[in-house]
């Protein structure tokens, strides 16, 4: 319900039918948005971050789950993995901000070891051009989540037994890993991975603190457009929000269809 209200209001605003700056129906705002490179860079930038984060985090988590397996499932280490989930993203962003920045902790450590003689010699990963700060922070949180996800699946799906079956059928460890274990884990995890990707795509706090003015991730770009006190920007913001919402909803619908298919089989 509230979502519907939000979408309708956003649509009205974006088409010039409502809002402070309304001048009657127009699609100009959409044309402005769709013809400005700004929207595409934000969109593309968000996808760039999302893809890199998800690919690296999934790979790290797979490696982590398979090497740490037993320790992850039981014992003290399992609590350690949950720690990143107990840290709010804004705090994670703050910690990265203080560690990775030009005069942050890492820079100081390098200085202490005489590897640099001035903070400016350290590139710093806050507001950096490749957004390594954002990616790094996201990866830490995502990897922890994925390791927990994979190890739960590992246990639920009796992967150890599949492993024995596969071995008894004559495949070696490596083939089993590639042909059985990893596909099983990924297949079961794919809905959660995609959903997580949608979260990363729309993430706000981390890019807000660690990102540059340009390009901005989509949430940051939209929020900033709303907060600028330029009335002409508000319909543009609504239009962007609407396009973003449509994109997310489409992704979800596709995901749901696929998920249902898996259930039917």
């Amino acid at each position, binding site marked *: 319900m509230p979502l519907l209200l939000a979408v309708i209001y956003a649509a009205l605003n974006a088409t010039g039918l409502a809002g402070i700056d309304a001048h009657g129906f127009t699609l100009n705002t959409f044309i402005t948005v769709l013809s400005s490179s700004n929207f595409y860079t934000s969109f593309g930038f968000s996808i760039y971050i999302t893809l890199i984060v998800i690919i690296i985090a999934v790979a790290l988590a797979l490696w982590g789950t398979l090497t740490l397996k037993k320790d992850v499932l039981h014992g003290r*280490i399992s609590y350690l993995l949950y720690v990143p989930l107990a840290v709010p993203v804004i705090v994670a962003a703050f910690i990265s901000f203080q560690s990775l920045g030009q005069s942050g902790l890492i820079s100081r450590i390098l200085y202490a070891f005489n590897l640099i003689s001035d903070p400016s010699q350290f590139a710093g990963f806050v507001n950096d051009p490749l957004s390594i700060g954002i990616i790094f922070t996201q990866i830490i949180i995502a990897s922890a989540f994925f390791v927990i996800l994979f190890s739960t699946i590992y246990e639920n799906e009796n992967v150890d037994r599949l492993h024995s079956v596969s071995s008894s059928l004559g495949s070696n460890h490596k083939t089993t890993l590639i042909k059985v274990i990893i596909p099983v884990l990924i297949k079961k995890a794919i809905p959660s991975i995609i959903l997580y990707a949608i979260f990363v795509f729309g993430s*706000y706090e981390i890019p807000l603190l660690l990102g540059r003015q340009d390009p901005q991730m989509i949430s940051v770009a939209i*929020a900033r457009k709303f907060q600028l006190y330029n009335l002409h920007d508000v319909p543009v913001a609504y239009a962007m929000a609407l396009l973003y919402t449509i994109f997310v909803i489409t992704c979800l619908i596709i995901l*749901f269809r696929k998920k249902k298919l898996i259930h039917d089989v």
Partner: protein
Amino acid sequence: MFKKRPKFVVLWICLIFPILFLGMLAFSSTWRFPTLIPEFKDNSNFELMVSGDASFVMIFLRSVLISITVAIVSVATGFFIAKVIAFHKKRNLLLLLAYFPFALSPVVFAACLNYFFTLFLLSGTTPGVMIAQFIIVFPYAIILFNSHWGSGIIAYEQSAATLGGNAVQRFFRVTLPLSKNMLLIGFFQCFIISWFEFGLTNFIGMGQVKTLTVKVFQYIGEANIHLAAMSSLLLVIPPLLLLWANKKFVLRNY
């Protein structure tokens, strides 16, 4: 066992270090380049913590109040609505709808909804923030409890009914005891979602409803890293305590 030691150490450093780092920043007052460890000069931070209206105690309590209210209301309503959805003919569609507000970026959602909050004079108020958070936490509660209802609990209810238990008896003697753990997990997970929320809170609260996350952001903006660290520490402690109590309290499953 001993061979695996290095892995443990690396993990420890990666995961525990940030929190120690926060602690150091929070309880110090200066950190000039190139010193490694922040220095402690006076206890002005402590004074700020307890003094006056804007004290951390007040902010902390307000955050707790908001999150507990949002969690209780979301769990209570989500529990029953999830039941209706779980046995509804259009279950999949309704569930998909529940995913929408949950998957959208809260800040974008808030931005689009802000007009209605302004209309009802809720922008910048604590109840406004609570309602806004409810809008995203409630669908999560539905998604969480949906699988709980799907797990066969209904057969126990029906069994109790054929044995003569009326609706009230069934609820208190069967449903509630069987769902106790799930409700507890749901409550803490909802609490944490609300507790961590920044974008939406900041937008609907217009920066005036000062929760801990909002404070962290404001202090960073003022370049006061020590107070930002202090707020961060306060933010991290309750979830860590919950984690210590039960891992499931903090793991939100998507």
